């Protein structure tokens, strides 16, 4: 009897500690948006803003996952050395592309509207980028990878129903296909973009 009470107590502790440490995907987005907003509205030099924005991305975006997704079926033909090389190139490309897009915004106002758990691995967080004098209101959905609930990671941004990861994947596929299926042309294009 005593033994079973100890077991129940033990499992209760585990259950509650797990639910306490699990991070809500919508909270993750709120935190990231607030953090980015502070950086972008600060008077810091652009270089400093880029470093800080890249830190946010490295901590909260599944860059390795996106890199493999964007390779499509070609990821199956890469050997380990090529995979390592590609992941490294993709990371540099992604961070440069990400920060250069964001740094143009002075203070974007993004509001979390709702959150939809698709399955154990995914939650879609729906947000709105508020209307400005220049731009209309824009719907942005965030695909959050939640396999590890303690460390949810962003895998895709869906702007007005258009997936950035899918667009990237099709762009890479086009580069490879138009160069005789040679993956090295993609590596070359990525290198050129990074040093540009």
């Amino acid at each position, binding site marked *: 009897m005593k033994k079973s009470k100890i077991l129940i107590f033990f499992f209760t502790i585990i259950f509650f500690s797990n639910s306490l440490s699990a991070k809500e995907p919508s909270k993750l987005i709120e935190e990231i948006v607030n953090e980015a907003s502070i950086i972008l509205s600060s008077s810091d030099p652009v270089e400093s803003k880029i470093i800080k924005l890249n830190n946010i991305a490295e901590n909260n975006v599944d860059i390795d996952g996106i890199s493999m997704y964007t390779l499509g079926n070609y990821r199956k033909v890469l050997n380990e050395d090529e995979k390592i090389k590609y992941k490294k190139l993709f990371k540099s490309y992604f961070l440069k592309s990400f920060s*250069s897009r964001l740094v143009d915004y002075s203070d974007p106002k993004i509001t979390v509207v709702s959150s939809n758990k698709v399955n154990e691995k995914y939650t879609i967080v729906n947000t709105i980028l508020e209307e400005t004098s220049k731009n209309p209101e824009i719907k942005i959905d965030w695909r959050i990878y939640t396999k590890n609930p303690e460390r949810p990671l962003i895998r895709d941004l869906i702007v007005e129903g258009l997936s950035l990861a899918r667009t990237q994947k099709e762009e890479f596929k086009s580069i490879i296909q138009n160069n005789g299926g040679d993956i090295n042309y993609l590596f070359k294009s990525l290198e050129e973009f990074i040093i540009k």
Partner: protein
Amino acid sequence: MKKILELFIITLFSQTLTLNVLAGSDGTIEINNKVKKIEQSSEVKDCFETVNRGIFAFNQGLDKIFFKPIAKGYRYLPKPIRSGTSNALNNLSNVVTIPNNILQGQFKDAGINTLRFSINTTLGIAGIFDVASYYGLNKLDKEDYGQTLGTWGVKEGCYFVLPVLGPTTVRDTLGSLVNFSGGDAWYNVTISNDTRYFQNSDYYYSRLTAGVDFRAKNLEAFESLEKSSMDLYASVRSLYLQDRIRKINNSSEITETMNDDDWEEIDTQ
């Protein structure tokens, strides 16, 4: 010959509007679910890619010297003027959306759009003011004949790029041609029929303004895409095709419109 050229120009202008993006609607019917499966599994062929890339480069040049500067200038107009213009053009698009709502079985949406059109055209002074939204009749998705064909299960056919106005598919071009065969009441009263109230130029001005309005709303988005793309042509093709699938499915939810198989294989945690 003049008539053919005219028709060609109009087709091109009508294509600019196909990338336009609006807020979601709930008036979908069961037939859409069948289409979803067809759309997900099919890959659209880019026929004549070399030629398409050439036309795309030409369009880029034209955009740089013509559409982009005009769109930038348009941005300097006071916001009420831009909003009024945008509202009036949206209101006008209802004459194509309403028949397509009916053809797609979206009778509730057809009713809402008819009411919106009636209220905004009269109380809203030719659609300049969106009075209908004030009465709780919110704006719904635009529909066109290309989307209707998609809803009926017609596949896209080849993807190709038209001079001046950009990306399209065989299905979407066929859909646009329906507009000029009596499917667009605005075209009918301005060009097809000789009415005392409207002239041909009214139609061309409305199309051109719609193109400029769309470009002005997307200046930063296009710039950002240009900056971050290694193959802009492929990115635009992907965005166009994704947008058409989303519109045909009448869904803004990515989980309903995308095949997730690739993601499922990737395990990084």
